[in-house]
């Protein structure tokens, strides 16, 4: 869409890390191939998802406009970027922020991209990522290049891959932590990014690090792989390690992560994660998307059997120097303050006092505080991001992170600077108090942009924020400390299970019309890295939810005994009492002319489920062989381009390499760890596919395999115009034959 897309690649040449640059070039070629119909839409969907380019509501080319379903006449016509996903439909771009760590320059880059490719807003997610909405797929390679130049990647931000490795945003400064988990989370993120053992999952895989077990800042219990810092005494010395938990997850039915090992030393962290990934890839469900997360595998096998498989796998891993190399210097401090420590010179008063109470917390380093920048619904404008970058530079050495509560935290602020930083944030609308309180509502995108959204989670969150903010001064302290989390559907992206008051979108028919509802979920424990999950209580029309919150909180204030926690109060009064308390709110209004009930928050259209689409959270089941063959096609395409440009040597090399890619893709079916060495690939291919005649075409027999053998034999010879042209053609045929062979093979049995 942008005119400058053609210019940015040259503009940023040399400024991007080589691996990221190459990865984006590959994606750009895949876009071109898809446009030419040379790449299957399902495969393209998974490859774009693995670059963080996600679908959005209405991308199936239709939208209920409140009166009727409108067909959207996108200019690119029938061209798709995935099954039932129109090419021109605006999409969401997720951007990985490992551990939530960003620097001021990266904030500025995000601001630029939000303005130029999105709608001027950067959204912080519940997994510390950033998201841009309404992005055109044609703009994504440029957007990725600009991110790469700022050392940010979108690789594996979505799809069946290792997602953002999250970490406690207070790591390194929290008085309660065992040790700073930051370097370990960075090492794991770096190690698993693009790792061959993580390319064949049935679903996504989410790791998280926490520096302690008692707080909720990293929510390790809801993760596929949760790592909690622990120390133990060995030979008179404190030795660092991790409590390792596996198989946690939210979704429709939440699972608590199970303890895998109470102490894993740092040097075993990466190989253990690799072994877990391999077991998940090999044994995890692939066909039934609803049971493909690792939580089901752990549950079905039992933690002991799962552990046994992982430890067996661990023994087979060839040593990798990165296991320890990436952890070098982990025990040293990595952040420094800009200014000397200090204390407030005068008592706080007015708005500053309230902000100080809710939006700052002391660091373990005396005289410093962490400042929370509370973002309404996780949203921040481009101008605010630039201002935040300036503020971070002015008061710190660039120490800022995102949080799972969709906020930013600025670390290492001298306490004597707190009045000044409050003033600076206030000047740009970023000093809203109430961080981490009932006002700081978390919500997933819901019906605003998500294809699976049933009710408007953001609309409800905005309304609750507004109403609670108006009376925040009157709210009892116990109520202020409650958490509200809202999901647009049962999939729990808004983490409704872990809140004191959780809601997820459902619908009900009333008088023949669909009415947006939310299921009320009570009893979740936010503390202890999510100590327990809440349970659904009843479904209530969306428009009555604010009254539900008011009744429950008022009743809690008047009925709590001896300072009991909200979840204990709810348990004590019981479901019957809850039902009596809220029953009248489950019905539509007596006034039949009141149509507001049939509309959702922030959406004037008559409510309909007609816009529900097929979600892309589960990605597409695409095997590593599918990917390998697609990579081979891409490479032979590049060989053709080189041929056209008269670069015969390059063309020949690429054609030969594309054949190796295809052969390797087939070998992987039987031998997952096939090395990259060309001689070994050819040998393995010969033994497993040629000698066994599995590769043989029903008509041409083993003819196409000989193209590979011949090309390999002559791989050290220079290519002429003629030999390069022959080889490109042979490579194309070999890849076609590889596809045919793959299609003839029986489907692997599900475990």
């Amino acid at each position, binding site marked *: *869409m*942008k*005119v*400058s897309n053609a*210019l*940015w690649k040259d*503009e940023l040449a040399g400024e991007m890390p080589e691996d990221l640059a190459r990865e984006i070039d590959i994606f750009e070629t895949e876009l071109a191939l898809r446009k030419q119909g040379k790449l299957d839409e399902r495969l393209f969907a998974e490859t774009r998802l693995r670059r963080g380019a996600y679908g959005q*509501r*209405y991308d199936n080319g239709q*939208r209920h*406009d*409140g*009166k009727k379903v*409108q067909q*959207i*006449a*996108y*200019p690119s016509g029938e061209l798709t970027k995935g099954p039932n996903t129109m090419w*021109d439909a*605006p999409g969401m771009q997720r951007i990985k922020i490992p551990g939530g760590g960003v620097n001021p320059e990266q904030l*500025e880059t995000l*601001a*630029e991209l939000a*303005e*130029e490719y999105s*709608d*001027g*807003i950067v959204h912080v997610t519940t997994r510390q990522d950033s998201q841009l*909405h*309404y992005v*055109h797929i044609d703009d994504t390679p440029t957007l990725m290049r600009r991110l790469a130049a700022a050392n940010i990647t979108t690789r594996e931000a979505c799809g069946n891959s290792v997602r953002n490795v999250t970490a406690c945003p207070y790591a390194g400064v929290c008085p309660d932590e065992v040790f700073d988990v930051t370097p370990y989370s960075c090492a794991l993120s770096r190690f698993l990014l693009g790792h061959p053992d993580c390319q064949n999952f049935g679903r996504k895989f989410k790791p998280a690090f926490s520096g302690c077990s008692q707080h909720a800042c990293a929510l390790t219990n809801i993760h596929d792989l949760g790592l909690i810092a622990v120390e133990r005494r060995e030979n008179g010395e404190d030795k660092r390690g991790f409590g390792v938990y596996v198989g946690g997850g939210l979704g429709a039915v939440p699972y608590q992560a199970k303890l895998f090992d109470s102490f894993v030393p740092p040097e075993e962290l990466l190989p253990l994660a690799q072994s877990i990934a391999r077991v998940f890839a090999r044994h995890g469900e692939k066909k039934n998307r609803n049971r493909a997360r690792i939580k089901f595998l752990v549950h079905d096998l039992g933690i002991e059997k799962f552990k046994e498989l992982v430890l067996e796998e661990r023994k087979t891993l060839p040593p990798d120097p990165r296991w320890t190399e990436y952890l070098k210097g982990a025990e040293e401090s990595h952040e420094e303050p800009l200014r000397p420590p200090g204390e407030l010179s005068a008592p706080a008063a007015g708005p500053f006092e309230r902000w100080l109470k809710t939006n700052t917390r002391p660091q373990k380093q005396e005289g410093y505080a962490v400042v929370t920048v509370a973002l*309404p*619904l996780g*949203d*921040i*404008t481009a*101008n*605010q991001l*630039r201002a935040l970058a300036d503020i971070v530079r002015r008061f710190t050495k660039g120490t800022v992170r995102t949080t799972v509560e969709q906020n930013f935290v600025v670390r290492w602020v001298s306490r004597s600077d707190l009045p000044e930083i409050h003033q600076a944030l206030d000047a*740009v*609308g970023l000093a809203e108090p109430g961080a981490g309180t009932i006002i700081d509502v978390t919500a997933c995108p819901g019906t*605003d942009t998500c294809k699976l959204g049933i009710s408007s989670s953001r*609309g409800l969150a*905005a309304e609750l*924020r*507004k109403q609670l903010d108006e009376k925040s001064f009157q709210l009892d302290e116990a109520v202020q400390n409650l958490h509200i989390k809202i999901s647009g559907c049962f999939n729990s992206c808004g983490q409704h299970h872990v809140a004191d008051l959780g809601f997820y979108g459902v619908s009900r028919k009333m008088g023949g019309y669909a009415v947006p509802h939310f299921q009320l979920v009570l009893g979740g424990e936010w503390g202890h890295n999510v100590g327990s999950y809440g349970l659904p209580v009843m479904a209530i029309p969306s428009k009555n939810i604010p009254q539900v919150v008011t009744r429950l909180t008022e009743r809690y204030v008047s009925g709590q005994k001896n300072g009991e926690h909200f979840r204990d109060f709810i348990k004590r009064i019981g479901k019957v009492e809850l039902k009596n308390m809220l029953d009248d709110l489950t019905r539509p209004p007596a006034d039949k002319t009141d149509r507001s009930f049939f509309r959702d928050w*922030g*959406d*004037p*259209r008559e409510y309909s489920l007609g816009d529900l689409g097929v979600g892309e959270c589960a990605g597409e089941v695409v095997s590593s062989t599918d990917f390998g063959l697609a990579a081979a096609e891409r490479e032979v395409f590049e060989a053709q381009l080189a041929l056209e440009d008269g670069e015969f040597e390059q063309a020949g090399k690429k054609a030969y390499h594309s054949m190796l890619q295809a052969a390797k893709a087939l070998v992987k079916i039987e031998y997952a760890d096939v090395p990259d060495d060309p001689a070994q690939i050819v040998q393995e291919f010969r033994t497993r596919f040629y000698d066994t005649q599995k590769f043989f075409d029903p008509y041409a027999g083993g003819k196409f395999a000989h193209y590979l053998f011949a090309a390999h034999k002559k791989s050290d010879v220079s290519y002429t115009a003629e030999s390069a042209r022959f080889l490109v053609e042979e490579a194309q045929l070999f890849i076609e034959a590889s596809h045919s062979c793959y299609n003839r093979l029986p489907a692997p049995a599900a475990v």
Partner: protein
Amino acid sequence: MELQHVNVKLLVENPGEVDLEPLIPIFHRWIQDQVCEELLLDVADYRHVEAGPGVVLIGHQANYSVDNADERLGIRYNRKAALEGSNQDRLKQATRAALAACQRLESEPSLNGRLRFNGRELELFINDRLLAPNLEATRAAAESDFQTFFQKLFGGNDFCLSYGNGDPRRLFSVSVRTPRPFNAADLLNNLAC
């Protein structure tokens, strides 16, 4: 230089009186009736963000919004798709689209006449940092295009250009003020000549 992805923002009168909530059903209606030349797709509500994009009507080729960036409330047209033609053609297209949207909003009964173009001030942005970095050189290169275009827009009447925020991180923009007020219809007529 090539001026693409032109944004035009018409500043409104008495911004304190304007309630953005009624814009949500209005923009949804515009989608139902596809009232603009662009393909209209969705409505994004950012009223909860201070000095933000306000309420945005998302289109394929362009977005329309009533935005409050820099705490300056205005009706904004954001051209996303590239346009053929000259710089004058592109400036004209974006300005016409913004003025047409302004006319529609001014005549919306549910807004009770509260959303009105102040007639004296508009802002123009180039939403592409590579084509138009916010630098003195860009100002020098674009000046004659702007002079020509605004001469036409204001029918030869006086106007004053100012290049506001010099922060190189921000979009290249120019602010235009006129001593006498114009209404949207006058300006559209001038562009039609």
